[in-house]
């Protein structure tokens, strides 16, 4: 038996397990599957895959891909290793704390699994251009940031050229929180995309400022008081660094004093850090499940050896094992893959400022710092400063003064590589 390749590092029987799948089809395998040498050659010698994130999911993804036979793997991560990563990011050790995740992870994989090439990039996904993303057959994301997911999703949707089938890069995305997680397959412009499902995200808990300032009842209120009100008051322009233990320590002591004053229990160092950093609980086992699901889909897509996920798998492990596999539907008015303008109904007396507040809060939009224009007319721009200053007076104007009923407003934000079209109706 041969391996379908002769690259260095391989040994007879190395892929005994995986080859049982690649040597013959199963009952649910597409007829286009080319069992045997050809598919092995593609997987092991030709397929190029990009992993975004070398953290909790990323470490698992790299190991699974390498064992499955992917040999040309690239990984991007802008973070360095922290001690709190070590309970799950199993390619890192105590001695690696402070080192770039992408570089340490790539070296570990190449040492452990011979013949696999992992190319790390220590930096942001936004540093790379379309040509860079075009070189890959598949992209897998193990990210903890909504912003980064929206960016890569929109970038891959924009990359699709109907004349060139190679330009469609399947995007596999995973995410976890505690004992829960989800994995999904996105075929840009074909299936529902990340932006289509933005309203599925949990709304972050926000406490009203008057409660924080006047009537705290929860330990979280005291911590918010320390970080939102006291920090800027005492430290002026000095920015709060949530990774600096001295800063967290200061917040903790201020929040503790506040809690004592209001007889509130439960302010702890860990809660303080959790609230200001918005920490999401994370464990090795859930990451293992979700990363395995992502890599399994990548393997099936790369080899056509079995049907792949259509298109969303979610798992909840808190009370028994519950999972749900379903097809998430595309949104016709998705700003990234839909093409149609999004209808919004607003009051005739609404100011531009109020419309901006709504855009920031609305679950299916969530644009942090939107800039607005209508045709060639600037409504409000967040940057550059001169333009911001010039358009600032418009914030107090009514939208209906600037845009006619049924007119379109274009919303952009520097963090997002797409614009959103709103069709305004006054009620």
């Amino acid at each position, binding site marked *: 038996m041969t391996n379908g390749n002769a690259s260095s590092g391989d040994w007879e029987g190395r892929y005994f397990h*995986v080859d049982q799948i690649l040597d013959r089809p199963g009952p649910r395998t597409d007829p286009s599957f080319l069992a045997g040498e050809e598919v092995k050659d593609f997987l092991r010698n030709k397929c190029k895959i990009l992993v975004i994130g070398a953290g909790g999911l990323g470490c698992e993804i790299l190991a699974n891909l390498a064992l499955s036979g992917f040999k040309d793997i690239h990984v991007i991560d802008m973070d360095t290793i922290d001690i709190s990563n070590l309970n799950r990011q199993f390619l890192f050790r105590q001695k690696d704390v402070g080192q770039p995740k992408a570089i340490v992870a790539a070296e570990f994989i190449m040492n452990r699994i011979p013949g696999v090439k992992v190319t790390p990039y220590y930096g942001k996904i936004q540093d790379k251009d379309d040509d860079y993303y075009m070189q890959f057959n598949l992209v897998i994301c193990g990210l903890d940031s909504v912003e980064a997911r929206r960016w890569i999703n929109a970038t891959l949707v924009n990359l699709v050229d109907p004349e060139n089938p190679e330009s469609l890069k399947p995007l596999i995305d995973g995410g976890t929180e505690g004992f829960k997680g989800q994995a999904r397959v996105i075929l840009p412009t074909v299936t529902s995309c990340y932006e289509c499902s933005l309203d599925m995200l949990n709304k972050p808990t926000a406490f009203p400022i008057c409660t924080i300032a006047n009537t705290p009842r929860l330990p979280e209120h005291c911590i918010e008081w320390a970080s939102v009100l006291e920090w800027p008051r005492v430290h002026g322009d000095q920015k709060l660094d949530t990774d600096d233990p001295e800063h967290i320590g200061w917040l903790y002591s201020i929040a503790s004093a506040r809690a004592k004053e209001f007889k509130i229990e439960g302010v702890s160092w860990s809660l303080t850090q959790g609230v200001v950093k918005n920490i999401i609980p994370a464990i090795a086992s859930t990451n293992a499940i979700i990363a395995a699901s992502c890599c399994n889909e990548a393997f099936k897509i790369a080899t056509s050896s079995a049907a792949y996920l259509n298109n969303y798998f979610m798992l909840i492990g808190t009370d028994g094992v519950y999972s749900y596999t379903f097809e998430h539907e595309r949104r016709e008015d998705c700003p990234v893959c839909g093409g149609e303008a999004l209808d919004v109904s607003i009051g005739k007396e609404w100011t531009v400022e109020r419309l901006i507040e709504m855009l920031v809060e609305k679950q299916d939009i969530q644009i942090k710092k939107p800039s607005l224009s209508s045709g060639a007319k600037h409504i409000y721009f967040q940057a550059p400063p001169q333009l911001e200053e010039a358009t600032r007076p418009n914030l107090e104007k009514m939208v209906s003064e600037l845009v006619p009923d049924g007119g379109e407003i274009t919303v952009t934000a520097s963090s997002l590589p797409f614009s959103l079209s709103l069709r305004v109706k006054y009620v």
Partner: protein
Amino acid sequence: MKMTESQDIEQATTAIAAQPDNKTRRYDRQLRLWAASGQAALESSRVLVLSASATSTSILKNLVLPGIGHFTLVDSTLVSPADAGNNFFLNGRDSIGKSRAQEAVPLLRELNESVQGEAVVSDVKELLSSDSGREWITGFSLVIAHNLAKPVVDDLAALLWDDLANPPLIVVNSAGFLAEFFISISRALWYAASPHTDAIPTLRITRPFPALLQWARDLDLENMDPTTHAHIPFVIILVRAVDLWRREHNGALPTTMAEKRAFKESVLAMKIKPDEENFDEAEQQAWRVWSEPAVPSEISALFSLPELQQPSTSSDTNALPNPTFHALLRTLSAYVRLQRVYREQAAAEKTLFKELLAQVYPELAQKIDPDEVDTFVKNSHHVRVLRGRPWRAWDKERDVVVSSLSATPRESATHLALSALSTLLAQSSDISEITVDSLKKEVQSFVGPDVELPEEVDTAIGELARAPTADLPNMAAFLGGMVAQEAIKMITQQYVPVCGYCVLDLVDSWTGIVG
């Protein structure tokens, strides 16, 4: 509060002293799920894993990282070229020909210096054949077995089921894209279903204890000063509103939409100024009056457990002991008073619980750790009892299996196909004898010749015939996560483990439960 610079420095330095130690920082992301109590349980656990397959080492990886106390990996075989290709916890080609267990253990141990681990180069079948081996196996806190030969698993499961003191067993079987695992627990274990959450238990609004009712009735709303009026806790407002409503409605609670609306209006009508937020809050929380069961149904079901010696009516209020009260109410003097009222009630009910325990189960009450009673009472709203069944007991009830095959064909077919595969693998070491036909014949003989098999059986069997001995890296990792999650829930006794066979299909990416 005015802040001087010297105070800042003092506060900053004392706070730095309070910064968590390295261990707490390392485990921070998991302590938010199972707290120090769960971590302590993990650290005192001793886990036995049988076979050093890719799946087994994946499971262990996810237990070593969060910090179990000790693991033992048993395997008598040598690393094959295939093992070296699919197991991350081997040194590739260099491990070929060496002991699987001995090669894997150091690579697992380096994941977490505080975890102890050892390799035992023995055959499980031989261990089970001696008394000392059998006794040794029962000395762990949890046993996990992957793809062991069917007669060996059956023997192991029977041994562990035999005595209530024996550890639970997780049986894991996989081939290609299909897998299942089963938890065999002979003891009934209790779990806290949702520990460390802010899920608010009943506030006893519709079943107030005397101190609560008295407070609500004593309120002199007309002559109260406006500040106090604006700070009556919403719970007290609701207790009072319910009390008044019942008097006017022959003791009944609001049920129809119109009644609920009228009730809410009665709450708002108590306002003396429009901006009294406590009355708005009471109106928003009015759903508790009609939606909050006194005792969750999972909990009331516990009172019919066969182990209970007599029907238990814990108190005349038919409510669960009060946990320490929720943080929602921690503010201002009225809230401090409210908190105290609930605390006192909780303490009184805990004492009552202990008295009942001593009365009904005198022997148990002597033996049980008082801390455990406290934890139990505190979590009484989230208690679940997990009752295991012996390994393969479900499969012996042919009628049940047959009806399951039509009710949940996909899950049942996958389970039956995996059982058939185990049977065939135990009969012959010749893999070529594992075919679609031989697997189907086995499934058919299992359910009886007159049962028509659904197409899901063909789907499952086809996948197993394709890859009967494949321990795929992705399936190993997936199972590694699933089984470790269950092991953690069992060891920490937090969250709820799965009951029955948990079946996985990674072609269509689903999980399901049968049995």
